[in-house]
């Protein structure tokens, strides 16, 4: 089955909650827990959107973002960046590196679901 959303999150509890709310919103999800796996799985499974935590082991979310944007294959992939550091600095970093959306933890579930839905929307039309 083709994947809608790949979730990259190393905190098991948060990953659990994200999978739950996105699946309930009717999306097909897969999960990875470190930065190297994200790059590998995005290329292998070709998800339609990516939910990306910043503080990941092995490769930080920002490095992953940079890599994906540099690769023509994943250049257009919609990416939602999540961070618990909540600084203006992180938001600007994410925007400069080409994040599609940015949400600070903790968040309202509806906020995340809505952001992912929006990211998937243009593709639905096409």
């Amino acid at each position: 089955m083709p994947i809608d959303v790949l979730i990259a999150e190393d905190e098991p509890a948060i990953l659990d909650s994200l999978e739950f709310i996105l699946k309930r919103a009717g999306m097909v999800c897969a999960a990875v827990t470190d930065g190297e796996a994200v790059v590998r799985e995005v290329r292998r499974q070709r998800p339609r959107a990516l939910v990306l935590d910043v503080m990941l082991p092995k490769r930080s979310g920002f490095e992953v973002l940079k890599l994906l944007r540099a690769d023509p294959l994943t250049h257009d992939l919609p990416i939602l960046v999540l961070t618990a550091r909540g600084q203006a600095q992180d938001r600007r970093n994410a925007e400069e590196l080409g994040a599609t959306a940015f949400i600070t933890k903790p968040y309202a579930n509806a906020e995340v679901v809505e952001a992912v839905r929006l990211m998937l929307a243009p593709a639905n039309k096409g």
Partner: protein
Amino acid sequence: MLPADLIVFTAIGYVGLLFVIAFLGDRRARLGRTGFLRSPFVYTLAISVYCTSWTFYGSVGSAARSGLEYLAIYMGPTIVFIGWWFLLRRLVRISHEQRITSIADLLSSRFGKSSRLAVLVTVIAVIGIAPYIALQLKAVTSSIQAIAGASGGGAVSSIEEVWLALGIAAGMAVFTILFGTRNVDAKEQHHGVVAAIAFEAIVKLAALVAIGLFVIAAGGGLEQIFAKAEAAGVDIYTTDDFGSRWVALNVLSAAAVLCLPRQFQITVVENSNESHLRTAGWAFPLYLLLMSLFTLPIALYGLVALPPGSNPDMFVLTVPLNAGQGGLALLAFIGGFSSATSMIIIESIALSIMVSNHIVMPLLLRATQGRGPARGQSVSALLLNARRFSILLILTLGFLYFYLTRNSGALAPIGLISFTGVAQFAPAILAALFWRSATLKGAIAGVSIGFVVWAWSSFLPSFGGSSPEVAALLAEGPWNIGWLRPEALFGLDGLDPLVHAMFWSLFLNATALVGVSLVTSQSPLELVQASAFVDVFRRGAGRSLQLVRGGATAADLFFVVSRVLGTDRAEALFQAEAQQLGVGRDELLPSAEFIDRLERELAGLIGAASAHVMLSKVVSGDDISLEEMMRMADETQQAIEYSQQLERTSSELRSTAAKLEAANAQLLALDQQKDDFLSQVSHEVRTPMTAIRAFSEILREDDIAPNDRQRMVETIHRESLRLTRLLDEILDLSALERGERSFEVGPIDAEQSLDSALVVCEALARQRGVTLRTRREPGRAEVTGEANRLTQVLINLVSNAIKYNSSAAPWVEVASRVVDGHHVIEVSDNGPGIAAEDAGRIFDKFYRGGGTGSGQSGAGLGLAISREIIASMSGTLSLVRREGGASFRISLPVAQATATTP
């Protein structure tokens, strides 16, 4: 014969000439025609202020009394200048970048802009230089007396020595005040004075060479002089030339040529161009060589030609007088007078800058509660008055020293007391330039101890000739404590007093500097400054590399430049550049030349240093982010506007803005540290909060399957426990840090705590596939502590070792034994070890090795708490090995050791 009164008028006339030179020099500098003033040879000649009347008169005296020893005073500086590439170049570059104004400023700046250190260095310099000033007064007094004695008449010869010296001191004070404190320059450069000093350097060299040539001619050639001296019974092959005293003099003079306030002033502060060092590196040694070329011939000729008992310190003067050469004697007098005046002028200018900047101004600001001077008074007028007062103080101290030690003999030993005194700055300076981890506390400890030992073993004994109390102290020690005798500390008897004082003062100084630095840590500002000093050349190289690559985007540059210059001006510059390159405004790629031009434009408003800092931050994109850059730029803009409201002159405006900018940069560095800490706490709190919030939102809905519901409630519970634990840890740590102990200590069995910890950790080790080994020597040891807390610490260490062990065949070893009344537990692993740069900070709060710390479950508080807990049990927790796997050691004093059971 030479009438003595003529001498006085000659001296006054000579001083007048110096005034004219200084005046013309300053005028040229003001008109911007600094051509010859800024030549490397004027710079080199000015450095020759090193040669004072000690060189001019004293060296001949020293050569007559103790052979080649006088040469050592020039060998040390020769080596320092030959090696300019390694030391002086670094010193000059740092001082230009940091706008250093004195040696006190240098040390204070490196050690976190500490005012305590600046005051300490200033006080030591003022006291340490007093003998040196006294030496000049004594030399000039003796020279006038020698001439008066020879001519046997005139008003001068009837004046008593003390009054003559007082008159000279007063004259010098007036002269220096008129000379050196006419204006205050932000860079503390005095072009006119430097020109006059360079002129004096030529005069003293010419005079000494003239006397030398006269002696060679009168003595019938070099060979004859040595032969006659040998025939007259002078030992021309002094046998003990190259002993410990020779080495000590070399070391001291090398240190002095860096640390003497006047040398620092001329070599570093007055340096207008770093490349002048390329010339001074060989030309100053050459000057020294020429100055000492004729010393020994003059001394030997004097010993033979003059009646026995003549003062050899005055041979330079009495040799021509004795031969009836009045003109030559007058030239010799002027040469000696030149050496003394140039030393006194530069030394008191340098010291007065230190006294006024580091002592008077801070006191004044404190007295006015930081509001600065009252209305109607300008800062520069106040500074000038403070300088004048300092000059008076310095010359008064010099005169007092002269007065109290007037019975003592030769010139050279007096100078060596000062050399040893200022040499106490040398360890701190070397550490400042080359040792990143030197701390403020270390520097203060080293300099203070060095100073105290110097004062006791070198300064105090110099009063021995005039004070019976001091003489008794020298013989018996204070309260008859023999090992405290100033010239035989710790019973080190029979050493030359100079070698003795130098050894103990510098040895204890350096030991304290290193020892205290190793056990204390640096404040954030010290860290910033340490890197600015130690990496001074590395930073430069990095920047140019970035420039070549064109590392900055036009947009980034425009942001910064427009903040300072205004949008219109910035836009005009960028348009012009784009036009010149024939590209569109938006396609502009900034070239190195363009960035340089922008930097110069900025420098016109906020000063070169600040402009450089601002641009290099964008260009290389290193530690400070663009956001912070914009804040910096904004504040600079505000500073400029504020200054304009004050209707200051443009030069004052420039320096104010630059100072504000510098202060702001420091605040940003501090802010960054605080931000990092808060951002860590924020991250640690937000992570469990996220899960709790997400699941509680889900649970508010009704249609959740019972087993999902059960799982979520458990997760919420677990995450809230994690949150509580984090808050507990923070509170626990801050209580421990305040010295409060929330637990009772009593006798416990440390091995039992270790048992409990191992039980917990074995499960974790199995789960992670790590081999957990123990190597426990049989026996029991009771320590004073709290069993659960000790277990907590051990679990923390062992589980860390397990969790972070990335080795292919990971193992963790726990060893325990009793050594020297301490129960020692070591936890070692074969993991990645601890990086050198982390080793000093792993016990800091929230410090997690390896940067981001992503994926690690702890909050980075464990080691900080562990160390505090062990400390509260009177033990120590330390990192004993960091390469090839880490090893931590807990050492607790044994309360009651039970006999080892076989």
